[in-house]
C-alpha cells in the first residue's frame, strides 16, 4: 500500500515519514507569513496535528504538499488573527537581514504600524506577494484563491496601506 493511503488510514509510521519529509517546507512557508522562527516552529507542529486529525478526509490521489500548505496557511492566518498587535510579527533578528538603516525610523514605524493594521488575510498575501515576491500561482493555491483573487487582494492591500500611511502623514 502506498504511503499516502496508509497515512489516510491512520498509520503513524506513514505520518512520521511525511512529517520528516515536509516539516521543513511547511516551516519555511509559515515563517514567511509570521516572520518569527519560534512561532513558526509551534505553528508547524499545530499544522501537522491538524493534518493528522484530518487524515481521513485526505485524498491520496492528490498532492500532500499542496494540502499541507493550505492547512499551514490557515494555521498562520489564525495566528495572525489571535496575535496581539504589540507582539505579532515581532522582529526576529535571527532571520533575514536588518531593515535598511537609510529609512528613517519614523517612517519605518509608520509603515510597520500601517502594515500590522491590515486584516490578516491581506497582511499575509501582501507579505508573500510584495515582500517575498513569490509567484501568484503559488500563493493562489495555498490560499485557495484564483490568481485574479490574489491580484485583487494585493491591490486592495496596497490601497489600504496607502490610505493608512496617508492618515499617518506619509504619502507613497
Amino acid at each position, binding site marked *: 500500500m502506498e504511503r499516502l493511503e496508509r497515512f489516510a488510514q491512520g498509520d*503513524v509510521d506513514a505520518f512520521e515519514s511525511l512529517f520528516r519529509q515536509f516539516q521543513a517546507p511547511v516551516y519555511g512557508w509559515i515563517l514567511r507569513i509570521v516572520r518569527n522562527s519560534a512561532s513558526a516552529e509551534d505553528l508547524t507542529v499545530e499544522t501537522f496535528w491538524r493534518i493528522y486529525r484530518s487524515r481521513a478526509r485526505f485524498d491520496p490521489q492528490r498532492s500532500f504538499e499542496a494540502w499541507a500548505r493550505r492547512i499551514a496557511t490557515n494555521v498562520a492566518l489564525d495566528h495572525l488573527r489571535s496575535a496581539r498587535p504589540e507582539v505579532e510579527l515581532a522582529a526576529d533578528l535571527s532571520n533575514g537581514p536588518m531593515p535598511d538603516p537609510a529609512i528613517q525610523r519614523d517612517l519605518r514605524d509608520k509603515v510597520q504600524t500601517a502594515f500590522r493594521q491590515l486584516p490578516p488575510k491581506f497582511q499575509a498575501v501582501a507579505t508573500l506577494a510584495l515582500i517575498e515576491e513569490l509567484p501568484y500561482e503559488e500563493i493562489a493555491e495555498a490560499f485557495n484563491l484564483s490568481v485574479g483573487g490574489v491580484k485583487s487582494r494585493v491591490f486592495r492591500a496596497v490601497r489600504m496601506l496607502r490610505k493608512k500611511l496617508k492618515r499617518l502623514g506619509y504619502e507613497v
Partner: protein
Amino acid sequence: MSQLEEKRMKELLQSVRPPVTDLELRDDLWPRMLRELDWRHSRIPGLDWTLFAALVICVLLFPKAMLGLLYHL
C-alpha cells in the same frame, strides 16, 4: 493605482520588512510532534466534560433517576 505605485509600495515594504532569507529549520520537530500527539490523545475532550457535568447535575437534582439510568446500563 498604477503599477508604478505598487512597485514603490513593494520597495518601501521590502526596505522596512526585508524578505526572510534564512528559512532553514534547525531542529527536528518530530519529538515535539510525538509529545503533542500523546497529549492531545490523552486529553479528555471538552464535550465529554460537559456531558459528565450534566449527568452529575441530573443525578443531584433527580436522585431517583439513577435507578432508571442503572436499569438501562
